[in-house]
Structure formats: structure tokens, C-alpha cells
């Protein structure tokens, strides 16, 4: 179901956590709310879920405004950051909980719980208590519990942050697969730009309770709207030119003779070898948008080997004309 946020606002006393945001999430898409901690992304998610009251504005899910409806009447289900599995219930009973609350007969709800556990490959541990499961397993159970009542929208609050890096990548793939199979809308809160890039159809970059940019991941990366987005999404240099500020992707920076006629001189302050690429940090006082923030150029290992730099070298730095994107504000 489509989700629409209409000048949605959340105030806690004098502080504004979410500042009148407008957003439309198409039905069946994977949307990531991305931003640093305290940017209002979790509050936004909780307002969509109905676990947080709305100060002003509205949330529309499908055809109806859900302003004051309790969570279960919105057609949404939430997966909590800490998973929030009931410690006194087995996996099977945890998954069947929502059905039990809706008065589904015991035999049927256990059957449906088993089927849902099978979907997340946890059916073999159905009789265990949450405390007897690893973090990754608990998460699968939490996912099954959220999906068992057939929600139209699944809300995920930093679902991968508690997992180790290897599991995180695996669960990421699995989430994407599940979303494709179920065809329902996923709204996923994360502070990892990598996660957002890998998963989403729509990335919503938030900062200070406002939306900085909401677009497809490729658009966000290719044409960051603001300096904040360019910095947060990574892989970009924010460069201050005399009349404007631009973002240039680090891998499009050109060094040495290729730098072009408008190149400026810069000093090499760090060289990091990364295997297939080499990251070169450059200090260029004429270009830096913030004092002391170095620029980064990512070179292929070939290019670097052909003309290596060492610390303290002075090089010419520039970029092809079409690679600079003008930034708002």
C-alpha cells in the first residue's frame, strides 16, 4: 500500500524531532530512511507504526489517514531494533502471538506460525526459547512474527545493526528477497549508507528532522542534492568554488597531468592502499569547503602504480567538467 506523509511533525516540548516532512512511498517499494542518529528517522518510522503520537500533520496508508489508529489497525507490522521477542514464549508461540490476539483457533495459528518460520528457515528451532537463539536466529523469528498477520507494510527499525558484518550482508540479501516475494512495502531505518544503497528503491536522507533528499539510490549517489547528502553518502568531495559549491565523486578526481587546465595544486597528506584502488588524501586550501577537511581521490591501482605519490608531494588536482554537481545551500 502507498504511504504518504503530509507535513508530519513531532515535537517533544521545545525540541522538534521531525520537522514537517512530506514523503510519498509507492506501494511495493523498498524505502530506506537514512541519516545520522538523532535525525528523526526512527521517530518517523514509529509515527508510521502508530507507536508515537503525531504532533501535527498526518500519515496516510493506502486509502485512509491513520492519524490516531492503534498499530494493529493500520495494516503495518514493525520489527523492533532489539527484536523484542517475548522471552517466556517459544519461537512458535512468539510467531503465533499476533494470531492468538486476533482469536485464530490454536491448531490453525500454530500451523501458520510453522509455515512462517519455514519461510525464514527457522522451522527446525520452533520449540526453542529466544534466549537459546543467536542474534541472527532471533532476528529471523522477529521477522516471521512481524509477517505472520499478513501486513501490507513492514516497518524495520535498524534491523541489521546488532548483527556481525558477515551476517549483516546475508540478512540484507534475504530481506531484499523476501520483499520481492511478498510484494509488500518495506520501510527500513538505517544509519548505514551502504545498507540503504544495497536495498532500497527509494532512499530518504534525513538530517535534523528534515528530508535532505528522497530519490532512487543511483540519483542520490550521482547527483547529491546538498552538501550534507554528498558527505553522508560518502565517496564525494564537497568543493567550494568562488561562486558556488559542487560535489565531485572521489573516483572522478584527476591528479597530475590529467588534471586539466583549471587544476589547483594540493599536497598529499595520506595514501591508503586498498587492493584494487588507492585512496589519496589531499590538502587543498583553495578548494576545501571546510577548513582542514582534506579531499579524497580514488585512483585505480594501475594508475597509481604508473605515477605513484608519496606523502608531502605537491600535485595538480582537477576533474572533468561534467563531473561537478552543483549543491543547494
Amino acid at each position, binding site marked *: 500500500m502507498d504511504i504518504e506523509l503530509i507535513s508530519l511533525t513531532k515535537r517533544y516540548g521545545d525540541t522538534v524531532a521531525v520537522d514537517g516532512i512530506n514523503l510519498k512511498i509507492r506501494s511495493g517499494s523498498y524505502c530506506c530512511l537514512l541519516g545520522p542518529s538523532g535525525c528523526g528517522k526512527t521517530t518517523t518510522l514509529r509515527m508510521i507504526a502508530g507507536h508515537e503520537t503525531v504532533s501535527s500533520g498526518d500519515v496516510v496508508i493506502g486509502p485512509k489517514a491513520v492519524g490516531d489508529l492503534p498499530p494493529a489497525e493500520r495494516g503495518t507490522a514493525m520489527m523492533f531494533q532489539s527484536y523484542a521477542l517475548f522471552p517466556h514464549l517459544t519461537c512458535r508461540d512468539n510467531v503465533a502471538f499476533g494470531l492468538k*490476539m486476533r482469536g485464530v483457533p490454536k491448531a490453525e495459528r500454530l500451523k501458520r506460525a510453522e509455515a512462517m518460520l519455514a519461510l525464514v528457515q527457522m522451522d527446525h528451532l520452533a520449540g526453542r526459547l529466544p534466549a537459546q537463539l543467536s542474534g541472527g536466529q532471533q532476528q529471523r523469528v522477529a521477522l516471521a512474527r512481524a509477517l505472520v498477520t499478513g501486513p501490507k507494510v513492514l516497518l524495520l527499525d535498524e534491523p541489521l545493526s546488532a548483527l556481525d558484518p558477515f551476517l549483516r550482508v546475508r540478512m540484507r540479501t534475504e530481506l531484499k528477497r523476501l520483499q520481492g516475494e511478498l510484494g509488500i512495502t518495506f520501510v527500513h531505518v538505517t544509519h548505514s549508507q551502504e545498507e540503504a544503497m544495497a536495498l532500497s528503491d527509494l532512499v530518504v536522507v534525513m538530517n535534523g528532522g528534515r528530508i535532505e533528499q528522497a530519490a532512487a539510490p543511483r540519483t542520490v549517489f550521482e547527483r547529491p542534492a546538498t552538501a550534507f547528502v554528498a558527505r553522508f553518502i560518502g565517496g564525494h568531495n564537497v568543493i567550494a568554488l568562488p561562486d558556488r559549491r559542487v560535489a565531485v565523486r572521489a573516483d572522478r578526481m584527476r591528479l597530475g597531468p590529467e588534471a586539466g587546465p583549471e587544476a589547483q595544486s594540493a599536497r598529499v597528506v595520506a595514501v591508503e592502499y586498498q587492493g584494487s584502488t588507492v585512496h589519496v588524501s589531499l590538502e587543498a586550501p583553495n578548494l576545501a569547503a571546510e577548513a582542514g577537511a582534506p579531499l579524497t581521490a580514488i585512483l585505480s591501482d594501475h594508475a597509481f602504480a604508473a605515477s605513484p605519490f608519496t606523502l608531502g608531494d605537491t600535485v595538480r588536482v582537477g576533474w572533468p567538467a561534467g563531473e561537478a554537481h552543483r549543491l543547494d545551500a
Partner: protein
Amino acid sequence: MSTAAARTHALPEAAQAAPAPLPTPLPAPAGLAAATRRQRRLAYWQAMPLGLIFLVFFLVPLALTLVVSFWEYNEYEIIPAFTLQNYADVFEGCLSGGDLCTTFRTYLSTLKFCLLGWAATLTIGFTVAYFVAFHVRSTAMQTVLFLICTIPFWTSNVIRMIAWVPLLGRNGLVNDTLMSLGVIRTPIEGLLYSDFSVVLAFIHLDTVFMIVPIFNSMMRIDRSLIEAASDAGATPWQTLWNVIVPLCKPGIAIGSIFVLTLIMGDFVTVGVMGGQQIASVGKVIQVQMAYLQFPAAAANAVVLLGAVTVLIAALTRLIDLRREL
């Protein structure tokens, strides 16, 4: 034997090695063994204060009570001996059938107070704890309300009980008010010195013992579980029955043990609030003590201890406390 010998053998080596660090790590195992033993000895020292208190204030008196319960006594002396007469006296007439013997009747009366007191303190205690834990948002307010719950403890038990007398008496505040309002014509007789007043006093005295452990259990419940329950479509009542009550079981069990043992062994409350007219097991023991019939009192105490143990064993059978804690 051989390992012990090896250890004692190795010990001087380690002692020699200690002052000058040798390049070879060879003496390490011996040093480790010595360290382990030292640690174990330290653990015993650390456990000793509690162990001593346990021994002096619990095991020794218990053993003495048990021993004395087998002694003989008459009007003017207690004779160290071994007799089962005291226990036979406790259960005198209990096996003959017909009417219930005094002991069984006393136990039944005490159990009735237990049941009533327990049910009332559980209901009130759970409700109060639930309110403070889940409906009071600020921690400061929670602390304040929690302290208010303990205010009754600032005065002594007896004073708290006596305070009910002017309230519940024949011409007390309650009767006066009801009569002046025209609700009743003649004073209600059963307010004071009755089962009602005894149970009321028990509730007054013991509810806090229910509140504290249940509140503690409730504070340990992850608040996101409540949200998860409402997300799954549970109404507040369903959340209460399916999430909060099961997770409060350890607190309920501990509170129940407190209240049940307090009421089982009570003699003051039943005496004062029952107008010295209602029997209780504790009262029987107290009277026998007053007449210096220590062996008889001791036998009664041992039987009471057995009864309480059975009660608690049944309770822990319902809830595996060790697992839940």
C-alpha cells in the same frame, strides 16, 4: 594422591622462581595451581561472614528447636530426654475421626487467613506495582510513589494495628459515619475483633511485601515488548495477561512466599485484631511459651515449619524460581 604430591613438590620451585623472573616459562603450571588454591581459599573467606550469620542465627536455633521438641516437661521443669509425646499432643484426637481436632481447626483457620490475605495482597500489590511501573512516566515520580508505599513502616506493627480500633470500633469512625449518613440504623458489629479486621490488618501490614518484588519484576520487562504486543494487535488486557503477568511470575512467587510465611507464623495481628478470640498456629505457640512449655511449643514450631515448607514447595513447583531469576 600423586597430583597432590606433585603439587607440594612443585611449590618450592615456584616460590624460588617468583623473585627472579626466569626466561623459561616452565614453573608456570605449579604457580597456576598454587594461585587456584589461593583463590579457592579466598572464596571460602569471602563466603564466611554470610556463612557464620546463617549458622548462628538460623541453623543453630533450628537445631535447638528440633532437639527441644523431643524433650519432656512438666509443670516446673524441662527434662532433656527423647520422647514423641509432644508431637502426639499436637495431633491429639486428630486420627480418631469425627470432629476436627484443635490443631487441624487452628491450621484451617490460619490457612483461611493465608488465602484471604494472599489473594487480597496479590491483587492490591499487583495493581499498585503495575500503576507505578507502567503508568508513571518519570523515574523521580516512581521513586516518590514507591517511598510513599513504605510510609506505613515508619511506625511499629502494633501501633499500626491499634490505629484501626477507633476507626472500626462499635462507636468508631466508620460506624458513626455510616449511621449519620443513614445507611445503617445500628452499628455493624463485625468490623472490629473479627475475621474481617484480621484480614484487613494483614493487608495493611503485608501488601508492601507483595509490591516490592512484583515492581522489581515489572521494571525488568523490556518496554519494547509492550509495544511489540500492541503491534501484534493485543489489547491492553491481552498484553497484561499474555505478556506482563507471565513475566512477573518470579516477583509474584517471591511476594507470595513473603506474605504466606508472614501470615502463617503470625500471632500478634490475630491476637490484637481478633480481640484475643481467634486461634492461630502462632498464637498457640506463643501461649505455650508463656506457660514455659518450651518442648510443646518447639514441637508445634517444627510442625508449622513443615507446613510452611510444603506450602512453599508447592509454590516453587508452579514456578521454577531458579530458572526465572
